[in-house]
């Protein structure tokens, strides 16, 4: 009497389990992809009708078919442009310092851990920070500049981490060659290292800005309004951005507004698609040239 089931049957069972698992795995992977497809199809179906010229030329309105994104788009352009202007230099400067200049000290370790921490803080907490510091303490009001400063702090860790990785990937032999020719640290960084790190810097920045474009919660918290029927007249002006306008339309009960919201989402996704495509093209172009 054999104590266990026959080895052959056991092997067959195991093989069946393997195949079953593969099926399950494919199904699981497909669920995620299917959800993406469903989302895109639904947005396209509902939003396509709302994609007319008035979407871009009109201000928000009580009437769905007249509601437009003009103020939101302009607001987004201002805020993101300003955010990029603040965050890119700051982020690159910090990354260069941490990766190329800072000696391995306790201060550097604290800063690095701190940056990783900041990357995991919920975005709405940044909104609270911006509310208290920029709106109230610095008296900058619920304005474009407040929004830009808040978003800068939010995406700074992303830019720093991406740039640091790009710098780290550069072999030290290039730096040594520059030093051996009498270059100073800053000269080496400026003339050799940064040009080589440019692709990953750009990719990281574009990804960070993509995130910033879609951010809603922190801007609501600092007081970006949801119904603005005029264009901002300066940096201290009240404003709204594209995702907040979409949020406003989703929150209304009329189906017409839901159509407009879907159309707005199409615009948002199109912008993101363009930006990410640009990032990928840039990355590929530079990777072809750089063969180190």
């Amino acid at each position, binding site marked *: 009497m054999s104590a266990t089931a026959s080895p052959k049957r056991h092997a067959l069972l195991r093989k069946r389990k393997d195949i079953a698992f593969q099926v399950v795995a494919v199904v699981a992977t497909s669920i995620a992809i299917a959800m993406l497809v469903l989302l895109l199809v639904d947005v396209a179906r509902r939003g396509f009708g709302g994609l007319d010229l008035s979407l871009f030329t009109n201000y928000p309105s009580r009437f769905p078919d007249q509601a437009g994104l003009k103020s939101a788009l302009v607001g987004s352009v201002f805020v993101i442009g300003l955010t990029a202007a603040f965050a890119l230099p700051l982020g690159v400067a910090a990354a260069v310092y941490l990766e190329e200049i800072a000696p391995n000290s306790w201060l550097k370790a604290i800063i690095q851990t701190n940056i990783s921490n900041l990357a995991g803080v919920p975005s709405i907490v940044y909104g609270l920070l911006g509310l208290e510091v920029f709106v109230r303490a610095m008296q900058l009001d619920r304005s474009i500049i407040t929004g830009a400063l808040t978003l800068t702090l939010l995406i700074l860790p992303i830019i720093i981490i991406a740039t640091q990785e790009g710098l780290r990937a550069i*072999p030290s*032999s290039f730096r040594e060659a*520059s*030093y051996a*020719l009498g*270059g100073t640290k800053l000269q080496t960084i400026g*003339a050799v290292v940064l*040009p080589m790190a440019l692709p990953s810097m750009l990719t990281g920045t574009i990804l960070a800005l993509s995130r910033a474009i879609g951010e809603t919660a922190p801007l609501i918290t600092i007081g970006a309004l949801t119904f603005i029927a005029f264009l901002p007249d300066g940096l201290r002006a009240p404003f709204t951005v594209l995702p907040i306008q979409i949020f406003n339309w989703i929150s209304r009960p009329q189906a017409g507004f839901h159509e407009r919201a879907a159309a707005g989402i199409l615009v948002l996704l199109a912008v993101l698609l363009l930006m990410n495509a640009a990032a990928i093209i840039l990355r590929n172009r530079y990777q072809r*040239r750089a*063969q180190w």
Partner: protein
Amino acid sequence: MVTKKGREAPPAPAQRVTLPEPAQAAAPPRADFALETVDLSVHYGPRPAIQHVEIGIRHRTVTAIIGPSGCGKSTLLRCFNRMNDLIPTCRIEGKVLFHGQNIYYPGVDATEIRYRIGMVFQKANPFPKPIYDNVAFGPRINGLHGNLDELVERSLRRAALWDEVKDRLKHSAFALSGGQQQRLCIARALAIEPEVLLMDEPASALDPTATARIEDLIRELAGEIPIVIVTHNMQQAARASDMTAFMLAGSLIEYSSTNDLFTNPKEERTEAYITGRFG
């Protein structure tokens, strides 16, 4: 010429700058040294890399430093242009005199030293820039006035690379072969017109043809400036150098004219190394 153990001497190097007579090889006056170390010791953290090395590099000679891996020859070389400063755990004791002045004296600008003492590395490391910009890099960051084109051409000629690249100066340096890239690095180092040239195993990654060209180049350049070359290839040292230093476990065992060292080594350890009993 047959020596003690009956082996053949390595072939005498072909064309060389005239050597000082053996009698004078002992201790020429200080001013004759371009570079000199005085009781030089280097530690990486707790680990000693070089101990109490005293060596003098003479003008217009090629000096080879040989020894098994880990003996400290690269460390010694990098002391000459203060490249060891870049390693945070490195501790240096003793002096390195460049034209009689200690380059490790506090307050001396290391980048100035590196600008006057050039270095070529083991693996060719041209910048991912056009050939022209590679050679022009040194002069540019050091604030050159004057004719850059002429300087670039002159450096490429001295490195025996001009004819091969003169039509494609704007092409990327990475398009060149390994041997060409190394000659480009030599041109790059020559462009700042160094007073001494240091070479850390410059041909170890190259095929024999490319190696031979580099060795020819070294002999030509030695007519103008002293060259210190670290090599693990004894035949290369015998072919290309005038003076040879043998190092072992961080100490300088023997230092004399190449001819003497290879045919009549004074130290037993030197002989053991060059006859291939270890290393």
